[in-house]
Each structure stands twice: as C-alpha cells, then as structure tokens.
C-alpha cells in the first residue's frame, strides 16, 4: 500500500549522549536498522534505549556520533523534517482534537492537498479498524483505541522509519498479547523499517528481526532473537533473554574440570578460560528423572510450580539451586537432573563474556 515509498535504512555510529549533571545515557552505540526490518532496542530501565530512540527522532541532540537515514545525515535536521513516525508510550494524542484531526494535523502542517489527506486518513483508519472513531476525541476512547490512534498518527505520515517507544506497555496483559501479534502483521504488511523500544524480552523475541541489547548506555549484542537466545554474548544478556531466567553457578577451573557447587564437569577441551568460570543452564535444557541417568546430579525437589502445559521445578543440587521445566507428574522429593553438555553456557567469571569452543566467542554485530 505504500507504493513508491522506500523503507529507510538508519545507520547510527558511535552515538554518545551526556546529560547536564554528568549522566552518560549513551556511551558510543552503533547499529544499523535495515530496510523493512524490525530492530528492537531492549534492556532494563535506565539502559538508554528510550534516549537512543529520542536521539534518532531528533528530540534529543547527541553529544557525539553520527546518524544517517538512507545516506542523508540527520545532524541538525529538525524532528519534523526527519521523515520518522513516532509512537509515544503514553500516546500523547491531542486531547482537544477529534481522531481525524489528530491524524491530519501533521499532514496539514506539511501542506498536503486536502484530497490526499482524506484518502490517507481513510486508508489508515481502515487498516487499524478505527473508522468508527474518527469523530471522537481521545477522552472518549478506551486505552486500546487510543493506542490505535497513536499508531495511526505515525502510519498516516508514511515515514521512512517508525520509532516506537514501548507502545504496548500501557495496555493490560490480554490486550497486549493480541496487539503484539497485530503489530507484527502490520509491520510485515507495511514493509516498514521499525526501531522498537521495549524492556520486555518476550515482546522483543516475538516482534523483532534483530535485537540490540543495551545496558548502561552500551550495546552488548545485536543479533536475531534466536541467535541472541542461543549464543548470548555475555552473562547479562543470557539472564535477560529467556524466561524464567537461566540458572547460574559460579565456579572455578581445576585442571580442565569445572568445579562449582556439587558439580564437577569436564570443560570442553578447546575452551580458552581464566581461573573463574560461571556456568549457565536454561530451565528447558534440564532433564529431570526419577532414576539416575548417566552424568546426572542427585537433586532434591524444593518447589513445583504448575504452569499448565508443564511445571517449573526448583531443585537443590548440593548447595546450588537449579530451575528446570518438566512434564506434569507427581515427582518424588529425591530425583535426578541432567543436562546435555552441548547445552552448557560458559562465561568468564571476571568479564562475564561467554566462552566459546572453537571460534572466538563474543559479539555478533549487526552488519
């Protein structure tokens, strides 16, 4: 439907942002948002993801670094001329204007002819299912409807780049899940380049083509969702992605053997490691059994949480805790847990970087 309008490619290089008072919100972040793809900025609150989005929008000026959209430098370009559509977390609709006027104001300011404006509003309203609401004011809409109008205000502009700042976080859980799938479909249909900010790793996994994980103003990893899940760059990334979190055992290397808690595990031969090592195990990779399997640890069952399709068990292995998914059944207090050694995630105890056998482990950068 957006014929002739090319999806934009955004390149950010070394973006730094210092706030007055000495807070460094962004510390040299680089990434590329590729045309027609969804790049999610993910991280805990205070990691700089929203600031990064506002810098791209032009609402904040970067202290240092370069931004280009389809090769055009964005330095000094005012927000209204950047060809970006922004969706605010709290929607920020104009409360005194009807839905129609909320959608049209930006187009009027750009001097589009009336006929074109009406046509775009009609099309956008149809796409978002808000045709019935056009005459109402934001105060007369439900939260979900306001959210659609906020999306519409970005859509109707047909920008090269969509910037979304936690657009689903104000919806209740049920609505959010439905809207998540709808957004994904919408992104696909538009073929739009989207920069999407969230702190919700499940949302990031579901919506993104690529995830840029941020922490304290730095990019930790940029990769496809499954890639980041299976090959996290470091311990923080590994714990942030995946729910429930993976279990971490702190330990040390003693002659090629990992010693941590009750576990003694031979380290992969090619692993280049320091004296201290952390072991990460995802709950879904633990196999629980009543009888001993080869290389299984004896474990005590502490808590079993039924989740419907399966149960989440909290086990005690020696002095350490281990979380494991298992089929539903009445487990005895005393059982065994084992993990396929290929599933172990090894991290350097000092730096937190993931250790990888064979190739050098570490960051996968967006090309």
């Amino acid at each position: 439907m957006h014929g002739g309008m090319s999806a934009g490619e955004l390149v950010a290089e070394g973006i730094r942002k210092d706030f007055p008072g000495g807070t460094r919100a962004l510390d040299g972040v680089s990434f590329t948002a590729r045309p027609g793809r969804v790049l999610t900025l993910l991280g805990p609150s205070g990691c700089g993801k929203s600031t990064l989005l506002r810098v791209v929008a032009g609402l904040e000026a970067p202290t240092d670094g370069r931004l280009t959209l389809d090769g055009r430098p964005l330095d000094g370009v005012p927000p209204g001329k950047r060809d970006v559509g922004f969706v605010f977390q709290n929607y920020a609709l104009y409360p005194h204007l009807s839905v129609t006027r909320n959608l049209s104001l930006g187009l009027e300011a750009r001097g589009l002819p009336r006929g074109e404006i009406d046509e775009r509003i009609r099309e956008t309203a149809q796409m978002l299912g808000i045709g019935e609401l056009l005459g109402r004011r934001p105060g007369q809409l439900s939260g979900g409807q306001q959210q659609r109008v906020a999306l519409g205000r970005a859509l109707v502009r047909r920008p090269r780049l969509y910037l979304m700042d936690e657009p689903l976080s104000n919806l209740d859980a049920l609505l959010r899940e439905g809207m998540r799938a709808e957004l994904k479909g919408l992104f696909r249909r538009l073929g739009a380049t989207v920069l999407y900010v969230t702190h919700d790793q499940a949302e990031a996994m579901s919506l993104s083509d690529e995830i840029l994980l941020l922490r304290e103003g730095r990019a930790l990893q940029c990769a496809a969702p499954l890639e980041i899940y299976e090959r996290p760059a470091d311990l923080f990334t590994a714990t942030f992605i995946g729910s429930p979190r993976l279990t971490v055992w702190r330990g040390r290397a003693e002659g090629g053997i990992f010693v941590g808690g009750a576990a003694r595990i031979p380290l992969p031969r090619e692993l280049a490691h320091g004296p201290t090592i952390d072991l990460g195990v995802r709950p879904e990779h633990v196999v629980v059994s009543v009888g001993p399997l080869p290389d299984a640890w004896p474990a005590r069952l502490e808590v079993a949480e039924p989740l419907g399709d399966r149960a989440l068990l909290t086990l005690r292995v020696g002095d350490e805790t281990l979380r494991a998914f298992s089929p539903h059944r009445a487990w005895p207090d005393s059982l065994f847990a084992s993990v396929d050694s290929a599933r172990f995630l090894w991290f350097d105890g000092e730096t937190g970087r993931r250790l990888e056998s064979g190739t050098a482990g570490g960051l996968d950068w967006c090309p």
Partner: protein
Amino acid sequence: MKRAAFAVAAGAVVAWSLAPAAWQLATALKPDSEITAAPTVYLPHPPTLRHFAALAKRKPLGRYLLNSFEASAAATLVAVGAGLLAASALARMSGRRRRRVLFGLLLLVSFPPILLLFPLYEAARALGGVNHPLALVIPYAALALPLAIWILESAYRQIPREIGEAAVLDGLSPLQRLVRIELPLALPSVVTAGILVFIACWNEFLLALTFLTRDESKTITAGIASVGGSSIYEIPWGQLSAAVVVATAPLIVLVFLFERRIAGGLTRGAVKG
C-alpha cells in the same frame, strides 16, 4: 452535622465578602434623608434611582466606562499575549532557570507602584501621552504581566511534554504549536488570567488619576474620585455609592459571562498512565 457546619462557615464567608457591597448598593438606592439617619435605616424605603439620575446628569458615566473598558481590554490583550509567549518559553527551560525567572518576576511585583508613578508620569508627559489611553495601557500591561506569566506558566507545565513533542514531530512551527495545541489546551487558564488582569486594570486608580486630567479621558475609577459635593463640607454619599455600583456592575457581568469557560478537565485523555 459536618454539612451544617460547612454551610454556616460558607455563609459567614459570603456574608463577610458581600456585606460591604450590599451596603453600598443599599446606600445608592436610599433617599438622602435615610443615608445619614440615626438610628440606622438598613433597607431603602422607598428605593430611589435619584442618585443615579443626578450622577448621570453631572458626569459622563458612559464615557468613563468606555475609557476603562478600552484601557483594560487593550492591556489585558497585551499582557496575556506576552504572557503566553513567556510561559511557552519558560515551560521549555530547565527547572532551575525557570524558577529564577519566576522568582525575579515575583520580586518585581513586590515593589509598590507608587515608586513608578513619577518616572512614568515624566515619561508620559515627555512623550505627549498625558490624557492618552496608551499612557495607561502600557504600564497596566507591564504591571499585570508577572501575574499573567505565573498563571499561564503553571498551565503550560500541566500540558504533558509528549504532546508538545508530538506536535514538533508532526512538523508544526512554534507559532502553529502555540495557536493549535498550546493555546486550546491552556484555554481555561488563559481565560482566568485574562479576567484577573482585566479586573486589576479596571480597578486601578493611582495611575489613572495622575495621567488623566481631562474629564472625558478619565476612567471610571478616576471619574468617581471627581464626584464631589457643592462645598467641601458636603459629601454626596448617595451619588458616590451609585458611581461605585456603576463601576462594579460590568465586572460582575464579565465574571458570570466567562464562568463556564473556566471549567477545567480539558486535558483528559491526552496521555495514558
């Protein structure tokens, strides 16, 4: 019980505020003999419009009212207009700088206007502004500006920041943002500021008395001051009271006219959470 106490307290406040005005109105309607009679006569009996008629014959009341209206309305437009621009700029400043400016404005207001009287009079005379309405409009607007800025600035700060940013992203120029977004959202406060500034200007006496010497240029407050008796021993209480009623009535009408516009709740549904 609580309700009754509230009613009594509210009634007391209303009586306290309205009693002088009611007394003034009663006096304006009393025949001369009842005004100074002892024991006190409370209600005019019979009410008479004689003082109003006599006053209208002696003084160009309509002219006074018109002068007052012109000066006050012009000053209100200037003060609120400039106040909007100032508030818009202040709302974008950092907290510390904004507080400094606002504090400075408060400091200015605390100077008694009489300090300004002589320099202003010299300036008005030098510029040939004596008896000219502009001689009042400019100082009125300037004196009322801090009040307007204080009211409008707090209204601006209640507009969620993201709405202004959305307008920036929509490509609206600063003037378009002011007219299409900020002004409508701050409208209740704009009306409030306008009314308060208008009332302050309407009631102003010192500058009006000093700058206006010709009878037909006088504002209503300065006009009332010129209502005298036939000798210095005679004070025409009835006519003075009638003049005060004439001066006050337009303000009361004004407040009732705009009362509905001061309703709040306009920002409902703007932002979520």
